[in-house]
């Protein structure tokens, strides 16, 4: 429910990315690239690159705006709030507004659009 293992994985990966950026004094984009470069060569690294190419721009944009991993994974629709279920969060919830409402702010970005925009900027 609520995205289950996909949500958990997303939250962990986004948290790690944010922490990597801080530890290495990287930008979020560099931290994502670093995370993929740590993966063993082959299928795993390939998979990592595809995921970053698809979802990375949203993550970069939102982390730069200091959103929490919970909000980012909701914006990516990997975390949800299923009917009758509570809202799940690992980190403190943003003040005055629910995680979903906060994530909604980013819904008009569109994953593929951002990916395209990102590629244009940084070929």
């Amino acid at each position: 429910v609520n995205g289950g293992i996909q949500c958990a994985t997303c939250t962990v990966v986004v948290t790690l990315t944010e922490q990597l950026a801080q530890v290495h004094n990287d930008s979020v984009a560099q931290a994502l690239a670093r995370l993929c470069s740590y993966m063993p060569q082959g299928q795993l690294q390939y998979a990592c690159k595809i995921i970053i190419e698809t979802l990375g721009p949203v993550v970069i944009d939102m982390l730069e705006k200091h959103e929490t991993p919970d909000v980012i994974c909701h914006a990516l629709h990997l975390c949800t709030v299923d009917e009758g279920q509570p809202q799940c969060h690992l980190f403190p919830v943003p003040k005055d507004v629910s995680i979903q409402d906060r994530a909604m702010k980013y819904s008009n970005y569109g994953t593929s659009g951002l990916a395209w925009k990102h590629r244009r900027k940084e070929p």
Partner: protein
Amino acid sequence: FSVCKLPGIKILCDWIERIFDDHNPALDIDGDNFSTFQTLRGSSWRGKDCNDEQENIHPGAKPELGDVFHDTNCNGIYGVDGNTGLPYEDLYCKDSQPIGVAAIGDSVTAHFHIPPEWLEAEKLNVEMLRYLPFWLENELDWPHLSGTTGFMNDTTGRIEGSTDSIYLQMRKRNRCNHRDYQNLGVNGGRSGSTLNNENALARDKLKDNPLLVFYALVGNDVCNGHSDTLAHMTSPEEMRKNFLKTLKFLDAKVPNGSHLIVIGLADGSLLYDNLKNRVHPLGKLWGNVKYPQFYDWFNCLQVTPCAGWMNSNATIRNGTTKRARELSQVLKSVVAETKGKLRNFDASYLDCPIGPVLDAWKAQGGEGWQLIEPVDGFHINQIAHKLTAEYTWNYLEKNLPHFIGNINPHNAEIIKKFGEQGGH
């Protein structure tokens, strides 16, 4: 949106699913359920096959023609002694009562472990993730380091502590037992699903040596991810029914002269008690994720392996412990009831060693959290695996010496002649 639907990722997802569904060796040419490959239920889990083209050659087999020409049981002992003219197998092993070790169990049996460095940005690097494919191919488990069938120390540098196991002790006691181990631990295994998982046991009643079998389902009959967790636990009646079926299966499967150790369920309330004030590896950098928070998040997503014990609600934790005690009592009663009624093996019940091991650790000045896996906050770690192996072995030596066979007086000669016996 599903990550597994992305192009290129689907193949990977399908591949992982196949590994997780099939608990027999993926690479096994002769179909004897033993493999020369390490992962994918290969030699990490069962003794390495010394000939993957002949079904009759595998660990635990009774030797053919005294193994004069080939090592048919893969214990590294073969050939003929020039002085006596006798095959070495006859000379060293024939009267030694060789017994293999098999473990039917869950993720504790299989030794589930996620290296904490993978969740700590300060420590994460290429070197740390080098063993990621190996780990995935072993279903996220480290059976080769486990307390029942572990046979080597960690070589990745990722795991603190050395290995000791029942298999290693059995091998030390009788070198003829070399490579005769099978770990049938399956993550999430409970008494019901184990009725299917135990079919992976590779043993021929007539052609193989007897087995010392461990039935160790220490948590999943009371552990599940449901929010109404108490309603989804195995009932004492179901436990009894499932366990009786397992006994029936084993009686039909194992060679005469085998033994069964039935381990009771753990008291998982020790998890929360020992971790409640500690920071989870994910929150180490900022100190902002403590275990109760982590447990509640996992419960909310219903991905927790154990909503009953990994829970900040004491009433639910206590209810889980109560049911675990009831189920252990069922196992104990069935073992007592079936005494003398099983044709091919005798059985003995042992309370889960984790509790006494933790108490002893604390009595020596240790802290409980030092024996718990930091990432999942649920399983026992490498140090605890070693300690539970030592505890169980001492119990067997003291109370059930006939379960473990005699010390082989030829051990030193075997080592001198055959060295590491082909390794693992």
